């Protein structure tokens, strides 16, 4: 009779004991496979997160490059028209106002290089109700000079009783469109809240020019005019515009002012750099997390293997003890030490093969069910082979001493006792 036949019959006969040993192997292989699979799923997730971040960075830089390209193509820039005696050298300098009628003069002059102008009256004021400094900025909105239908105005007019809030104000006060607030005793409704535009613009409360003139007691006056998106077809364009404006408005001076496009490009450049930094941070965090998980596995897996080996060793020892009479009679009828040893280790191999297979499936399912099957690579041949081989080695090592004990058992002693 073949040893394997006896071995399999014994397994079927003592199922509970076999299952008890099998469980140890299934659990240890399951934990090992689960850990490895989890680590691989983590790696895939890391790859996916970093890829998404990289795409984000690429997109941000692409937007930045696009803005630069567009600004270069249009060669548009803004001009600031203020009183000729205004130096703008210190913040505390007294403001010299211009008559609001300059807007009409400029419009009538129909300068070809100026598309539209933005008259404004601005002053830094103490906001008593909120106990803070803000810049009150009154404007009637853009005034078209040329091609009135060419572009949608960048700064629209603000109806009386309404206000447009810069980011620094609406974020700090938690104001949203439709909310109401009081500024120097006058109630306003928030018309819109603006995104980041720059340090000065973020602290501006924009209202209608008329209301600002009333609040600042400057009827018919403005601080200056912004000539927006002026187009020059040659490098000498700016000098020509200056000359043309001075001819129409002799009490003014013309200064360059950074355009919205440039501000937006700067914002996007900053955003791209932040995204890039965030990608680096994510990379570092994921690497640290992986290292911690690896360190945890380095402790967990050997511990589980040792517990499983001890458990299986005890079960095998009990099995051998239970079969003392049977082993003694096999020895009496001529079974060699090696054959008895093989009988016990053969069972360990069966336990290892079954335990490795079931442990692999169990470990994968235990992760696939909560994480989703798409996140797990269910059939990984190298991991399957490693599970089977590892389980067999574990079971054989755990059963080695009991098998040696069985093969060295003195049949005479057992037969006399039984």
């Amino acid at each position, binding site marked *: 009779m073949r040893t394997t036949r*006896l071995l399999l019959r014994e397994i079927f006969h003592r199922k509970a004991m076999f299952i008890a040993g099998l469980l140890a192997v299934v659990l240890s292989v399951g934990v090992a496979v689960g850990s490895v699979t989890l680590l691989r799923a983590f790696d895939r997730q890391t790859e996916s997160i970093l890829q998404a971040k990289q795409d984000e960075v690429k997109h941000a830089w692409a937007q930045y490059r696009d803005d630069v390209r567009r600004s270069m193509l249009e060669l548009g820039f803004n001009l600031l028209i203020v009183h000729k005696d205004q130096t703008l050298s210190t913040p505390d300098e007294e403001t010299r106002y211009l008559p609001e009628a300059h807007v009409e003069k400029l419009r009538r002059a129909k300068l070809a290089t100026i598309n539209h102008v933005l008259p404004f009256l601005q002053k830094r004021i103490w906001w008593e109700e909120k106990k803070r400094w803000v810049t009150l900025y009154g404007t009637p909105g853009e005034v078209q000079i040329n091609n009135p239908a060419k572009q949608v105005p960048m700064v629209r007019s603000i109806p009386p009783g309404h206000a447009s809030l810069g980011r620094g104000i609406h974020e700090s006060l938690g104001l949203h469109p439709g909310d109401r607030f009081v500024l120097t005793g006058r109630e306003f409704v928030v018309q819109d809240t603006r995104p980041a535009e720059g340090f000065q613009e973020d602290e501006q409360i924009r209202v209608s020019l008329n209301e600002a003139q009333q609040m600042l007691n400057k009827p018919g006056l403005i601080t200056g005019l912004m000539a927006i998106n002026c187009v020059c077809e040659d490098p000498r364009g700016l000098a020509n515009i200056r000359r043309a404006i001075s001819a129409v408005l002799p009490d003014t001076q013309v200064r360059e002012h950074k355009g919205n496009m440039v501000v937006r490009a700067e914002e996007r450049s900053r955003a791209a750099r932040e995204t890039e930094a965030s990608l680096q941070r994510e990379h570092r965090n994921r690497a640290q997390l992986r290292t911690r998980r690896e360190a945890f596995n380095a402790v967990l897996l050997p511990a589980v293997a040792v517990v499983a080996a001890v458990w299986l060793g005890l079960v095998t020892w009990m099995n051998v003890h239970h079969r003392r009479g049977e082993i003694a009679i096999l020895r009496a*009828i001529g079974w060699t030490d090696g054959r008895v040893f093989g009988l016990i280790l053969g069972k360990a191999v069966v336990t290892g093969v079954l335990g490795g297979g079931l442990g692999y499936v169990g470990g994968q399912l235990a992760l696939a069910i909560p994480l989703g099957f798409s996140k797990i690579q269910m059939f990984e041949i190298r991991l399957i082979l490693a599970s089977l081989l590892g389980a067999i080695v574990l079971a054989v090592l755990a059963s080695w001493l009991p098998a040696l004990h069985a093969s060295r058992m003195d049949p*005479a002693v057992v*037969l*006399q006792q*039984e």
Partner: protein
Amino acid sequence: MVLQVRQIGKTYRGSGKAVRALERVSLDVAAGELLVVQGPSGSGKSTLLLCCGALLAPDDGEILVEGLSPYTLNRRRRAAFRAQKVGFVFQQFHLIPYLDVLDNVLAAAVERNSASRERAMHLLERFGMGDRLGHVPGELSVGQRQRVALCRALLNDPPLLLADEPTGNLDTDNARVVLRALRDYAESGKAVLLVTHEEKALSLAHRTLQLKQGRLVYP
């Protein structure tokens, strides 16, 4: 001479006092002979049998089976020696509980071939177990179990058959069948050593010896 026992002695040294189980025992069993060794419990009968069966090395003396001393062999060769030269029948049968009748007999097969299988089936038929081949020991009566154990002992046609109280658990009819089988085996030219304390075995013995406190007493 199939079995020659020369002045053997055996002492058990456990945690307590040493017990001298056999003292200068000598006997021979020739081919074709059924020798019965009688004696009360604790007289050393089982020890004698285990020594003769190459399972328990005596402290003194010598045992030869067909002229070969099994205790001069290494463990592997001694196991092969037991398989080929010695058959055992015990009072407790010692069948393997999860193997069916045929597999229990075949567990002793030296050669794993169809000839062993045919011989096993032939023996089982001869002892009236032909219709119980697929049954496990738990499904058999004690008499049937002993017949299966007997078939296992005879499978390799050993020159020496050792039986330790083989009828101790059997009723009269089954005991008669087993004893008759032992006698027949001896008469087929083999040596049979039967140790028992039962009187009913005496009538079939060719020769009888008494063992008392480890010593042979000649009647």
